[in-house]
């Protein structure tokens, strides 16, 4: 992420969370946090507990973020935020928390005769991680039509050009789902697992070979030793942990979508 991208990210994030942008310059900005946001990112639970117990006047923090220190000419004091900085990571996590579940309707212009029909979909974004002594991550976006059970890949990208709002327009009506959302979720989970099973797992084989090689070296060292010391077991355990291959599936976010546009 370049400084400009970070700047617009912060701007968007605080704006969407109703925090007032007090000052907005090219390379820095000052933000007035709301009480909710202060509680979320300022890490001062005792202050808030104290305030609530004493009925004090809440004074949520005002923060200045410098997004491009190199271009900064003004004499400004503030937190430097860059890709990799703890603050940005924290805001990434907050974004994940605050944007995990949605319920959206495609907007419909005025219809002269019949109302437009909206089809319900479940959309879920999955992050799949492969771990051994190395890591690789993949992002899958799956969607399921809750009427037909039709499954599509790359769902998130298909939503990009649609006009979605959290409430339904008056010129539309939504079909009731035939497949229950939770049932659909199970089927999407299954689809991801099938996907993983069909993938090439030579990475795990390779890790196993590395593990075997190191294991042989270790056995060689203790060859002929009758009472193997405790550190032998320790080493063995360390090797197991180092090379053990495993896969994690994590849901980034997902939601229900009522769409007029056909997706196939």
């Amino acid at each position: 992420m370049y400084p400009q991208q970070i700047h617009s990210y912060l701007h968007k994030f605080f704006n969407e969370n109703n925090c007032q942008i007090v000052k907005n310059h090219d390379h820095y900005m000052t933000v007035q946090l709301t009480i909710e946001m202060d509680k979320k990112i300022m890490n001062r639970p005792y202050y808030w507990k104290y305030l609530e117990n004493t009925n004090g006047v809440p004074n949520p923090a005002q923060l200045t973020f410098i997004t491009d220190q190199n271009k900064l000419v003004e004499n400004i004091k503030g937190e430097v935020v860059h890709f990799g900085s703890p603050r940005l990571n924290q805001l990434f996590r907050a974004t994940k928390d605050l944007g995990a579940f949605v319920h959206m309707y495609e907007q419909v212009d005025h219809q002269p005769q019949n109302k437009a029909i909206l089809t319900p979909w479940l959309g879920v974004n999955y992050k799949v991680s492969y771990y051994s002594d190395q890591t690789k991550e993949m992002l899958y976006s799956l969607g399921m039509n809750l009427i037909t059970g039709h499954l599509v890949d790359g769902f998130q990208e298909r939503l990009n050009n649609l006009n979605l709002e959290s409430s339904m327009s008056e010129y539309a009506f939504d079909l009731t789902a035939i497949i229950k959302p939770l049932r659909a979720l199970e089927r999407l989970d299954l689809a991801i697992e099938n996907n993983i099973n069909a993938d090439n797992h030579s990475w795990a084989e390779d890790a196993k070979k590395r593990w075997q090689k190191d294991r042989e070296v270790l056995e060689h060292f203790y060859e002929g030793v009758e009472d193997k010391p405790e550190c032998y077991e320790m080493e063995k355990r360390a090797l197991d942990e180092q090379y053990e291959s495993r896969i994690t599936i994590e849901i980034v976010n997902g939601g229900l979508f009522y769409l007029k546009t056909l997706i196939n």
Partner: protein
Amino acid sequence: MLIEKSSTWKEGFIERLEEREPWDNWTLYNMSYDVVKTNLITDFTGLQSPKYLPNLTPLRHQLEVAETVIERMNGKAILADEVGLGKTIEAGLILKEYLIRGLVKKALILAPASLINQWIDELNNKFYIPAIPYKKNYNLDNYSVVVMSMDTAKKSPHKEVIYAQDYDMIIIDEAHKLKNHKTKNYEFVQSLKKKFCLLLTATPIQNDVFELFYLISLLKPGHLGSYETFQSSFSANKLTWEHDDYLKELVNQVMVRNRRQDTGIEWTQRRVQTIPIQFTKEEKEVYEMIEGLKNVSSVFSSAFSMITLQKEMCSSKEATYLTLNKMRQECVDSEEIDYVETLIQKLMALEVNTKAEKAYELISKANDKVIIFTEYRASQAYLQWYLGSKGITSVLFNGKFKKSKRDWMKQLFKEQAQVLIATESGGEGINLQFCHHVINYDLPWNPMKLEQRIGRVHRLGQEHDVHIYNLAIEGTIEDHILDLLHAKIDVFEKAVGNLDDILSTLKESM
């Protein structure tokens, strides 16, 4: 294959379906997806960490080390770059990479006490790794990256506390301190679980090849075979060699070492001179009387005390006097006492210290900042007095100084004094690139100590050629020390690789 899934999202989803919780904001939903996409680690190989570290510009050789260690050595390695090439940066890059990739959650860094603050500072400010220095009452459960001294770590109750933690990565700085497998340090590290492990040392061999064997056996037991097979292959004589190519290859599988010249950076030259010095007639007489001591009294019969006195006499009468005076107390019969008394008289009557004069001559000729390393506190004090009498300002330095005092002394040296006089233990952890002259007033037994000394000055950021003067008095024990230094350098070069000049010019002249 083990697949781990979490049901957290599903539970939250049910809450929304049943209208107990509100739905989220669409813009934040999209932002969240984009963040994950941006941060996705799409390949098993390659480094992610540099893009998270905009304020750090790692050098090419540092990035290569990080990649090699992770991809070829599977995260277990000895980082053995020459002094001053940034081993801490390399370790930081590797740790950061594993943290980003989620393979390391908890890490322990063991460093000499004097370097703890430097580690904390670099990890936090250069790598944004929230490392903390260990304090006695800390509960280690709460801290993911901890830096502590080996001396603390190996003792109870800290030792037990550490064993109870599940560290994914162990980093040990100045790992040559583990060369002796009979020490508590070694035993402690041996019993630590080492999933990913980095041992940092510029000097993996200080005296003999078995030190390397023990270091590697700590990291990867069996890599060089068992002790018996290793010993039989590499002969009983620790200083000779038969299978050096084979050994070097094995070593290179677990050790990365960059030399200054491999880094692609323009390094300034090292100009090493060994300066032979002749004692005056009076000094020589005293030196010979010292050698005669062992025939006169049993108090002086041990080789160790003999060597100490000989070395001290090559340094200063002040250093010699302290030891000699202490040993005189142990003499009983009058013949012994007479001999020692006469010796002390002659010693104290000496008016000239030829070596100090030579040092003064070199300092005047350099007409620039100079560091003098001596092995003795008494010589250190004497040199300050002597140089002062010649109008040369100096500051003293030793490793026992607290960090604030060290910084202060460094500042004084930089801004006011011409000479810094340091004892051996002052060697680690100070960087003095503004200085270009090093006088090794006394020679240590170990060439790596010389390398450490030179490394204070000849490191990244040095803009001038560096002059190194090794002073050695002819016809004394210092001849023997020089021979031994050469032999040890030879062992190092055969097992590990070439060394930058420490003594070489003398080698050619010999």
